[in-house]
């Protein structure tokens, strides 16, 4: 019965298979995009956290004399360091805010204080 030989794929089968693959590829493309975006965001977040921590620790380790705002560019990220006086503590304490931004989007923000030792200043005041 040559006419009913079932060897090989029929056209209908191939069309069905291609249709299924087409639908799957659409679903998988959006999944791949999601994976890529999540991976990119994750990497950005990690870099932003490290950058914010680096600048925060650097400010904590340095001597601060006055309130100021420092803006630093690092690749496509912008780091804004805001140093503000805490008036309640007569220049003993400065509030430090480090914010890492990409365009308008804030990726990381660290806040804390920097304690200033007034030992030398007070000594001078007392000797007067």
């Amino acid at each position: 019965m040559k006419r009913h030989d079932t060897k090989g794929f029929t056209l209908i089968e191939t069309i069905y298979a291609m249709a299924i693959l087409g639908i799957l590829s659409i679903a998988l493309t959006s999944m791949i995009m999601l994976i890529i975006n999540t991976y990119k965001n994750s990497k950005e977040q990690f870099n932003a956290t490290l950058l914010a921590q680096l600048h925060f620790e650097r400010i904590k380790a340095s001597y601060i004399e006055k309130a100021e705002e420092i803006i630093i560019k690092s690749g496509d990220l912008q780091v804004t360091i805001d140093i503000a006086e805490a008036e309640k503590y007569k220049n003993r304490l400065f509030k430090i805010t480090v914010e890492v931004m990409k365009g308008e989007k804030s990726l990381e923000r660290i806040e804390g204080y920097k304690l200033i030792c007034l030992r030398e200043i007070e000594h001078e005041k007392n000797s007067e």
Partner: protein
Amino acid sequence: MKKTANSKRGAIIVFVLIINAIMIFAFTVLLSSVVMDFKMKKLNSKIKKEFYYAEAGLDEAYAMTLEYLSAVLDYFYENRIENKYGDEYIYNEFKNVIKGSSNCFYDKDSLAEILTDKDNYLISNEYYPMIDVELKEEQEYFLLKINSYYKTGEVLNSLSLSCKISVPGNGNELKNITAENLITDNYWNIGR
């Protein structure tokens, strides 16, 4: 129509479905691993932020202690100049002020009460860490231990500071001494 053992009718569909299943499984695993990685990065960011809030609480408590001691020193120095009090009185009264049992100093709260009052903190407006204070009186000094905690979820960031607060021995010391000179043997400790 009788199916033979060599029949391949429908085989391509089976093949496509198997490929589909493998690809969906592989991409799902990849996606879940990437999402987990993202969550870990977010958690890392949160832990670091909270650590700095806890540290800010401790820094502010330390600054508050310095301010308080400065005010006490100024008060006693001014009164010493006017010869109102003798050395022994100053020594004992200084201790009473720190303990909150003085009748002469304008602030009747003890140092521990001031440090544990949430309203005294600038940081309390938004992110207030829990502050615990232990103040122990020894023969010639006070032992001060400040603990600052910040806890959200299951992660606890804690920092502590232990120090000695010396009591000025006589009125002449008040002239050259600063609040920073009174605080000695600082010991900082971090826990998580």
